[in-house]
Each structure stands twice: as C-alpha cells, then as structure tokens.
C-alpha cells in the first residue's frame, strides 16, 4: 500500500521552502540581478595581510585543505568545494603580491587535478600563469600521519609566512597549525567540522568559525551561484530556528503539534 511517511510533514515543508528559495535565488543569480551581500569577515581580510607579511619576510605562503580535504563523494564534499574556492583565492593573492605559494594537497589523490586546476586558474586570472610550479604542489599520500610529517617538514625547511588552512580537518590540524605558529607563521583558517573548531580557535590568529568558511568561500569566489547558495542556507536556517521557537511556545502552552495539526 502506498502511503505518506508518518511524521515527515515538516521535512516536506522544509524541502518545499528550500526548493522555492533555491529557485528564486538561483534564478536571480543566473539573470545577473543583485544578490544579498555577505558581511566582511575579519579572517578573509587578514589573508591579504598575511600574504603581504610573507612577502616582507621572504617566506612562503602555505595553503592546506586538510589531510582529508579532497573528499569528492562524501557528505563533507561542500567543505572540499570551499577549500577549492579558497585555493583559487589564495593563488590570486599570491600572484598579485608576488608571493611563493606552497599547497599541501589532501590525501585523496582523485582530487589532485581539481586542486591543481584551481591554483593554476588563480594565477592565470591575475595574468601570471608562469607562477604555477608543480614542485610546490605537495602530495604526501593517503594517511594523516604522512601528511602531517610532510607539511611540518616543509615548515621547518622553507619557513612559514602565513599558513592558510580551510577545509576538512581531523586530528591533523592541531599539529600543522601549532607547528606553523612555532615556525613564526601567522595562522588563518577554519573548518566546518565543529569537533575540530577548538584547534582553530586556539591556534589561529584569525579563525573562520563553522559555517563562516562557506560564507567566506562564496565571498572570495565572487561566484553568483555560490552567493545564492549562502542566501538559500540562511533562509533555511531562519526557518528551522523559527520552528524551534514555535515548537517551544506550543509546548509551553501544552499544544501538541502532532495531534492538533493531524501529523
């Protein structure tokens, strides 16, 4: 027998709200109409300062998406896209200020072309494709243990001006961030994995907390579709928060939504 799943009405309502919002904002983005602006994040502004600092100190800029930051077929793929947008932005900044960029690529080798492509495109966009050096695109194998050893040995051998880490981080980040600091570098970064947010909060000079990485990536990418994605997410978030508050009020009043509204 075909029947609607019990207790899934609000899921359907949320889906419809998000679908309608997606259609509205994506349509606006495709037509080139004005989208809501994202407020300026301190960590994004600090990236240019950090790259400038690296040039002054004659030390390289390090960029990492995390040892597991190249996941292309998992629920964390949105963070991979965020890391790629940031790689492009950091490459553009380095091209603009003539800074050497070392990219510590994630362990997922299947994402190597995507990371290389973003960095190459960043240099190209600033009119300096010759700045792309394959030797500075470092790959350390699949495991976090080899990744952290590779990254930290690069810090020790080549120095750190600024270390920008945005993406999927597990227990690799307490080591890479702290040792960048130890070698005199400035740390800027963040992850969407809340469980590792503590490491970024403790070790970074400028931190992107949780969802700020998505907003920051959309801002620096200047891609209208990514910007519209943030607007859609904000509407969805406001809807969920509104439902929580409404649920609380109804609960205090002793009204059961399930029996009153028949689902």
């Amino acid at each position: 027998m075909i029947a609607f799943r019990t207790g899934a009405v609000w899921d359907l309502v949320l889906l419809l709200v998000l679908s309608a919002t997606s259609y509205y904002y994506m349509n606006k983005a495709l037509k080139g109409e004005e989208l809501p602006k994202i407020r300026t994040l301190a960590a994004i502004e600090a990236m240019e300062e950090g790259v400038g600092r690296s040039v002054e100190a004659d030390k390289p800029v390090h960029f990492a998406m995390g040892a597991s930051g190249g996941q292309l077929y998992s629920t964390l793929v949105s963070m991979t896209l965020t890391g790629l947008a940031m790689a492009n932005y950091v490459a553009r900044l380095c091209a603009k200020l003539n800074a050497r960029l070392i990219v510590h690529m994630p362990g997922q080798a299947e994402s190597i072309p995507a990371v290389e492509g973003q960095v190459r495109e960043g240099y190209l966009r600033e009119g300096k494709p010759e700045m792309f050096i394959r030797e500075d695109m470092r790959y350390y194998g699949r495991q976090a243990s080899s990744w952290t050893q590779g990254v930290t040995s690069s810090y020790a051998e080549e120095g750190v001006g600024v270390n920008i880490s945005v993406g999927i981080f597990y227990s690799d980040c307490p080591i890479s961030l702290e040792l960048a600091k130890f070698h005199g570098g400035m740390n800027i970064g963040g992850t969407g994995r809340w469980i590792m947010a503590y490491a970024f909060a403790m070790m970074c000079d400028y931190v992107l907390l949780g969802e700020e990485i998505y907003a920051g990536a959309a801002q620096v990418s200047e891609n209208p579709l990514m910007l519209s994605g943030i607007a859609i997410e904000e509407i969805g978030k406001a809807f969920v928060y509104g439902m929580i508050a409404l649920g609380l009020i109804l609960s205090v009043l002793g009204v059961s939504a399930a029996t009153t509204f028949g689902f």
Partner: protein
Amino acid sequence: MSFVKRDLPLIILSACGLMLLLNFFVPTDIGNVVKAELTTWTVIIGCIGTFLGIYYMTISQWRLLQQTKTTIQYFYFATIFGFMFLWLAVGLYFPGGVTSPQYLWLQNNLYRNQSGMVYGVMFFTLSSSAYRTFTIRSIESFALLVGGVIYMLRQIPIFPAIWPGLLPLGEWILLVPNVGGGRGAVICAALAALVVGIRTLSGREATMMEVQ
C-alpha cells in the same frame, strides 16, 4: 560534447535525487529496490574514484621525477611506489587478504606505530597551544587545569604504572565532572538556539548577510 560532459550527469543526478526523495516521503517496494541499487552504485563510484586517484598520483609523481631528476626524487618515487605495491601484493597474494598475518604485520608494525607517533606529537602541540591560550585567572580555570593534567597523565601508561591511583581518579573526572560539564554545555547550546530562534522570528538576528 558539453551535453555529455555537463548536462547528462546533471540529468542523471537529478533523476536519482528525485527518486530517492520520492521514496523517502512515499516509501514503496519498487522505491526501496531502486534505493538499494543506487546505494550499491555509490560503492562502485567510490572504487572508480580510488583507481582514478592512483592514476593521478602516478602521473603527478612521474612528472615530478621528470622535472627534478635528483637522488632524493628517485628515492621518494621508489619509496612511495615500493610500499604501495608491497601493500597491494601482500593484501592480494596471501590467503586471507587484508586479514592475513603478513598484511596484519605490515599494518601493526609499520602503519600503526607511525600513527601512534603522530598522535604523540599532538600531545606537545596541544599542550603548547593550551599554554598560550588559557591563563589561570579564576578558581574555575584552575580546576580545569588540574582535571586536564590528571586526565592527561592517566592516558600515558608510564604514569599509572608509577601511581596506580591515577586510573580511578581519571575515570572519576571523566564520568562525574566531565559529564556534568557536558550536560551544562548542551543546555546552554539548546537555550542559545531558542534565543536565536526568537530573535529570528522577531527579525533581530544579524546573519551572514550584510545588514542593509
């Protein structure tokens, strides 16, 4: 070409997504069969991704070797691929595959020790960042420090060997103050979510979007 490269994958993905969504809201026997089949395909796609990864990694390392033909580059190349083939050969050749004693020996004596060493380094990096970040300015922060130090010492085998009392003490910290503090944090987070909800309903919440 753009249809095959861009539009066709989008059509396939959208169709799969719609089928899964439909089955979530209106579960049917056919829908469940389709869902099971699509879930199997994610494993297949994952395997293809792994093989693509090996291909890209080989190309990338080969190009590096061509660009800088130094002794160290030859060493890196030989080491990476030597271990990779050793791992594959042992896993595929010996009876039992990845549960064979030979494979487990590689896993336990090479891989696991290396991972343990990296986690050991984390102890120093976390201690140094905690030293820089936290300062003891109140009785609460002092209690946090004492609890943290006792629990940290309990985790390092040599210290419980010197003083066995660290084991029950560390366990008590984990099960009593830690659980109490955790519950407090959860209550605070729930209250904060409600406050944000009420602020959102009243239009007072400043979000990622720039306030116009």
